[in-house]
């Protein structure tokens, strides 16, 4: 035919090698060897560093089941290459944010992978729990007025019949929230679950079956004794209760104030 054949992307030897390592060879028996190979790469050469950054940032290219191994490798590299770790965490968070801003269907799989990656980063102690909670609240509140989703209010970035954010939250919670079982992290998670259940009911109900199951499974896994709300009123009461336990009697006011302070800071 007339048109030129599809040109294959040219990749340097090092890039081909790194890609083979993570895309083909990686599994739970080989990760140790692969970690060694990564340590042996030339970290002074900007080209190699670019390639390594790329493989660890484009996490959706890796098999989903291997994401935790990539995180494990990254966490082992943290000791010697901190700047590299900071860069991949920064870009993962940025990707999650951009995903919310664009909200394009074709990126859904990538977005799930990123959220999973972030959760694993908590499990391997690369990020701390505040980062996770920040992300959770961003996912639920982004694009909504004051970060607070409300029933019946239209938000172009998160329409009522778009349930994808629920899946993001469930994925993140299922990946790492099992560790939020004591101390302040537990309290924060209780509060978030209240908020999340409320969010779920700001959506068009009844929920599609698979989303509903997803939510139920997640809640069941994290808090087996939690009463699962079945409508908006219950969820609203639940949220108020959760806020009262979290902030004491003056709860609501305090919460509002804190939010406002946060907002002010952000605007500064």
């Amino acid at each position: 035919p007339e048109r030129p054949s599809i040109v294959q992307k040219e990749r340097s030897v090092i890039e081909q090698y790194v890609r083979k390592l993570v895309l083909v060879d990686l599994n739970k028996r080989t990760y140790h060897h692969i970690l060694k190979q990564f340590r042996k790469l030339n970290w002074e050469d900007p080209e190699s560093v670019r390639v390594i950054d790329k493989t660890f940032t484009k996490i959706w290219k890796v098999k989903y089941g291997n994401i935790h191994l990539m995180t494990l490798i990254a966490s082992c590299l943290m000791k010697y290459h901190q700047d590299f770790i900071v860069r991949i965490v920064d870009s993962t968070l940025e990707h999650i944010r951009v995903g919310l801003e664009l909200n394009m269907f074709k990126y859904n799989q990538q977005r799930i992978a990123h959220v999973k990656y972030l959760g694993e980063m908590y499990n391997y102690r690369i990020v701390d729990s505040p980062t996770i909670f920040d992300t959770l609240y961003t996912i639920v509140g982004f694009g909504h007025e004051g970060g607070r989703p409300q029933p019946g209010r239209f938000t172009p970035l998160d329409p009522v019949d778009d349930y994808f954010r629920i899946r993001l939250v469930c994925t993140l919670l299922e990946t790492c929230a099992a560790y939020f079982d004591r101390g302040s992290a537990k309290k924060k998670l209780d509060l978030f679950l209240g908020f999340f259940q409320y969010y779920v009911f700001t959506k068009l109900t009844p929920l599609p079956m698979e989303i509903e199951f997803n939510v139920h499974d997640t809640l069941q896994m994290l808090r087996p004794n939690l009463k699962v709300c079945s409508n908006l009123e219950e969820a609203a009461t639940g949220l108020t209760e959760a806020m009262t336990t979290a902030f004491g009697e003056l709860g609501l006011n305090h919460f509002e104030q804190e939010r406002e302070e946060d907002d002010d800071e952000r605007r500064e």
Partner: protein
Amino acid sequence: RDANVRTKFVIRRLPPLYTEAEFKNVTAEYINPETVEWSYYVQGKMHRSKSTPMTFSRAYAKFKDVESLIAFNKAFGGKVVKDARGNESAMQIEFAPYEKVPRTKVKVDSR
């Protein structure tokens, strides 16, 4: 230093082809070794396929003190910049969601 004070900024939504050199040039007065501890730039991208939205460039900077951070935000918050191909966008300055920066002392991997 107080651990609760956040001083790492992310400067988002820089045009895709806006280069690191351009950025450094423009912000040199506020982002330089005297005011920031650590900073780096991520080049954005225009994609070959038109259906893929462009990737904005972004920069990260960890300031040494709150004053220089506020000064920078005052000078640049919402400023519109343009890259070589005429893409215009207003930069968005925010606290970086991940506060950490690498230690200055680096352990060398003996491999």
